């Protein structure tokens, strides 16, 4: 790091004038971390204000360690976070500590974490083995050992992520109603009790590192990466749950970015109360650590608990019971300063409001905008079957089982639907707490197709939100709230800033149209690599996770065909089909561009309601939304792991390639038993939506597609299955 601790000259001047003196080295280090992009959102705050954050289920919106919604019997806490920069430098530890960090965020709310999702973006698969293997092993190592299932996610490959992989991890937890903990003290004289692992030199200035672009020296920043220990994490988790069950904490804050400094300033600011901190007793794992290192270390598996003095002995007993180290780190005061003492000296003294609020905004609204070209991509004449075979071997479509079978997706015995589903479905129970139990179910799904947002940022973002809501509906769930992770390149570059602006507007507008709020999230900027004169920024890749509700967890649906039946496409079928922004465009031309068809969100809302109703009334056997790879991929995915076949006959005016491979939204494929067809059609016809009979599911293991009476594709399913299943085999 440079001698300004990641701060700019201008920020340094601002600090001097705000505190009325030269800051010392330790104070500068504190500003360096807490004014980093990662901690302060200085380039994105005005954008985040555009998202809707309120709604009927929301108990806690953005601003705390996680957002919380209310279901009939329980509260549910969730959040997504990124660990992008560390995962390039040290893929295993970067990804592992990403998992550990988000789990602690959920614990901080007093919730028991019950599931993880991961949303991964890797570079060209042939150049990324070090990263892909390391990241998957890191997630597997941490999640499996701590005993929280990784129930789903998405993995996407594109060369723009070669040196800037994206590792976003989402965690969800459950808790009894009306028992939320926050990062708060309530009065002066309360103690800050540090519990967990000892403090070492790992991860110092991790947050600052995560807020700048990479250059040729990126891999030398290994000491900025934290090291995780899931066994310690598990002990800490059980200790926190134990003290929460006894209602001992006044407030809870995990130690993440900025370590002890970050956590103490957070508590001071949110409680509007000063804090006196003494670093002398902090358990250390290395000798001769100085105050700067102790304050800013991002060593993992540590939490700060605000307690009443009279509960100290009980907290010490808990720490000892779970073999965790601890110390009394400090005490709340009536002043407006955070004072830090080390070896009898006051080493730093800062007004917490200045630290929390003083950072100058770096946001400037772009003066230009970006208009995608109106040109429609039409591929040169080619055999549809060749194109289909290209798709199923493409890493973005091929089976991800080589990844997810390395994750324990069933521990906790709440996984009703796991990886490879349209969305994961969880039941709600906590065996030691009979009050934390429900017949309702939770569905979770991560989405963020960067090709849509690269081609047409505003509309692509609307497609992404729609896709997430539609995915949840396909398992029988109504979307209630989102968590988002805004991954972009360097916002100082105008083209990046413009697309970021458009994406956020598109997401925010779509969420408002759906009336579904964002209640937690994270921003990761500077996903950029500069090597000599080559500058590479990631495509705009906001990832959203939708959390949905199943009124009855037993009434869930999956995408697999079950038996011979009729196959219908339902939704908004009368729209302009396009291959712009599609995987086919990327495969055939090497890039994605052009406008996307405007998604009719009113119709999308009707479609998701319709599908949830069809599932509830047992009128369909399967449901799967049309998205990446188009209709043909959709049918193949529902077919491949069964013993059935599909005979598709299309009678349409549309070009068959466009119709089969287009990724246009607001469409779901459902299979229906013949005797229920009339009833099914009647229900669809009560809405302004369309249905189209596209073929039948048969006992013959074949996949054929006819177009206006002539055979277009005949595919041997076992060969296709082999290709689809094994394309990623050697990369994980």
């Amino acid at each position, binding site marked *: 790091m440079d001698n300004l601790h990641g701060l700019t000259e201008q920020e340094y001047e601002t600090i001097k004038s705000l505190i009325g003196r030269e800051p010392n080295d330790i104070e500068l280090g504190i500003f360096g971390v807490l004014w980093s992009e990662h901690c302060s959102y200085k380039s994105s705050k005005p954008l985040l204000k555009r998202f809707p954050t309120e709604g009927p289920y929301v108990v806690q919106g953005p601003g705390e360690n996680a957002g919380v919604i209310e279901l009939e019997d329980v509260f549910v806490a969730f959040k997504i976070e990124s660990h992008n920069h560390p995962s390039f430098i040290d893929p295993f530890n970067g990804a592992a500590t990403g998992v550990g960090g988000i789990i602690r965020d959920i614990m901080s709310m007093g919730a028991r974490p019950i599931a993880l999702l991961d949303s991964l973006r890797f570079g060209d698969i042939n150049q990324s083995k070090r990263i892909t293997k390391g990241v998957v092993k890191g997630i*597997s190592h941490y999640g*499996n*050992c*701590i*005993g929280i299932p990784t129930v789903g996610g998405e993995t996407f490959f594109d060369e723009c992520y070669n040196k800037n992989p994206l590792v976003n991890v989402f965690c969800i937890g459950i808790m009894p109603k009306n028992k939320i903990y926050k990062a708060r003290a309530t009065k002066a004289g309360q103690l800050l009790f540090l519990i967990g692992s000892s403090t070492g030199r790992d991860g110092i200035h991790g947050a600052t590192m995560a807020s700048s672009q990479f250059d040729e020296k990126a891999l030398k920043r290994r000491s900025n990466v934290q090291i995780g*220990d*899931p*066994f*310690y994490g*598990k*002990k800490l988790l059980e200790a926190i749950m134990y003290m929460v069950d006894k209602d001992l904490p006044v407030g809870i804050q995990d130690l993440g970015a900025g370590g002890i400094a970050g956590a103490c300033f957070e508590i001071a600011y949110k409680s509007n109360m000063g804090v006196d901190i003494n670093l002398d007793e902090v358990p250390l794992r290395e000798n001769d650590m100085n105050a700067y290192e102790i304050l800013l270390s991002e060593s993992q598996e540590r939490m700060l608990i605000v307690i009443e003095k009279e509960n100290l002995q009980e907290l010490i007993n808990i720490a000892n019971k*779970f*073999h965790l180290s601890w110390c009394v780190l400090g005490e709340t005061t009536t002043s407006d300063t955070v004072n830090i003492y080390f070896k009898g000296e006051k080493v730093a003294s800062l007004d917490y409001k200045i630290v929390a609020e003083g950072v100058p905004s770096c946001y400037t609204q772009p003066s230009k905008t970006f208009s995608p070209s109106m040109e429609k991509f039409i591929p040169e004449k080619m055999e549809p079957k060749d194109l289909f075979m290209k798709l199923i071997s493409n890493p973005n479509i091929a089976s991800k089982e080589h990844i*997810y*079978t*390395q*994750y*324990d*997706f*069933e*521990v*906790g*015995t709440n*996984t*009703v639907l796991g990886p490879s589903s349209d969305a994961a479905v969880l*039941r709600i*129970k*906590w*065996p*030691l707490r009979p009050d934390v139990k429900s017949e309702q179910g939770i569905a979770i799904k991560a989405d963020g197709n960067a090709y849509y947002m690269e081609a047409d940022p505003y509309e692509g973002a609307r497609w992404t939100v729609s896709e997430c809501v539609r995915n949840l509906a396909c398992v029988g769930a109504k979307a209630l709230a989102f968590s988002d992770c805004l991954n972009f390149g360097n916002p100082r570059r105008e083209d990046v800033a413009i697309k970021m602006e458009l994406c956020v507007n598109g997401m925010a507008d779509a969420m408002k149209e759906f009336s579904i709020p964002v209640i937690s999230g994270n921003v990761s900027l500077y996903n950029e690599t500069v090597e000599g004169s080559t500058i590479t920024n990631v495509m705009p890749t906001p990832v959203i996770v939708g959390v949905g509700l199943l009124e009855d*967890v*037993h009434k869930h649906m999956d995408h697999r065909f079950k038996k011979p039946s009729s196959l219908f496409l339902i939704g908004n079928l009368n729209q302009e089909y396009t291959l712009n922004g599609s995987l086919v465009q990327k495969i055939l031309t090497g890039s994605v561009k052009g406008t996307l068809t405007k998604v009719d969100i009113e119709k999308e809302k009707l479609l998701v309601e319709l599908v949830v109703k069809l599932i509830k009334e047992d009128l369909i056997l399967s449901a799967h939304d049309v998205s990446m790879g188009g209709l043909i991929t959709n049918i193949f995915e529902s077919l491949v792991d069964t013993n059935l076949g599909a005979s598709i006959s299309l009678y349409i005016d549309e070009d068959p390639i466009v119709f089969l491979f287009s990724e246009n939204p607001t469409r779901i494929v459902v299979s229906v038993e013949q005797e229920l067809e009339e009833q099914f059609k009647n229900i669809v016809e009560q809405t302004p939506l369309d249905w189209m009979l596209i073929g039948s599911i048969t006992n013959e293991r074949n996949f054929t597609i006819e177009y206006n009476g002539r055979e277009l594709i005949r595919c041997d399913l076992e060969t296709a299955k082999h290709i689809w299943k094994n394309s990623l085999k050697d990369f994980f």
Partner: protein
Amino acid sequence: MKIGICVFPGSNCDYDTYYIVKDILQEDAELIDYTSKDLDRFDAVILPGGFSFGDYLRPGALASKTPLAEAIVNFASKGRYVLGICNGFQILTELKLLPGALLPNENDKFICKRVNLSVENISTAFTRKIEDKEVITLPIAHHDGRFYAPQDILEEIEANNQVVFRYQGENPNGSLNAIAGICNKSGNVVGMMPHPERISEDILGGLDGLKIWHSLIA
């Protein structure tokens, strides 16, 4: 029946097993802390899956040095029922209550999937309600599940009919003789890599695990 579930630091299938015994089987269940020394009140104890002591040193190695482990050895010597699942199986081999060892999977990866098993010994307390050679489907989730024993021990295990479960079809981890679970000579101690507690409810997509639980409480 009073069934104890052993909790070591790092166990993570303890609550899942507790839930099955208490809520699904409606039997008397109790979590037992690893510092406990007395198991007299139990009819059976289960060592659940997880990563006891973070798998440090070797899976199961540190758990086998705890007071509770000593009590389990004592409990088993009285002929009472002991079931080790996954990490529990690893602990039982470390304790020498069961022969052999569980080594890292052949592909050196964690594997989470459902597998088919043939039930090869139906005289144990955990398999007595299952048909001989019946094929059941249970989930596995482990990194160190490759059963190994020296040739002479392996022959002895086979000769004594100590193989309880054998992978049917695919051998997922490279276990010798496709062994997924074994018992001791007297049959009161059983260790298995697959997780019956994960597939004992309709909502989780299968009921084959119940066959093991119903054998126990029959």
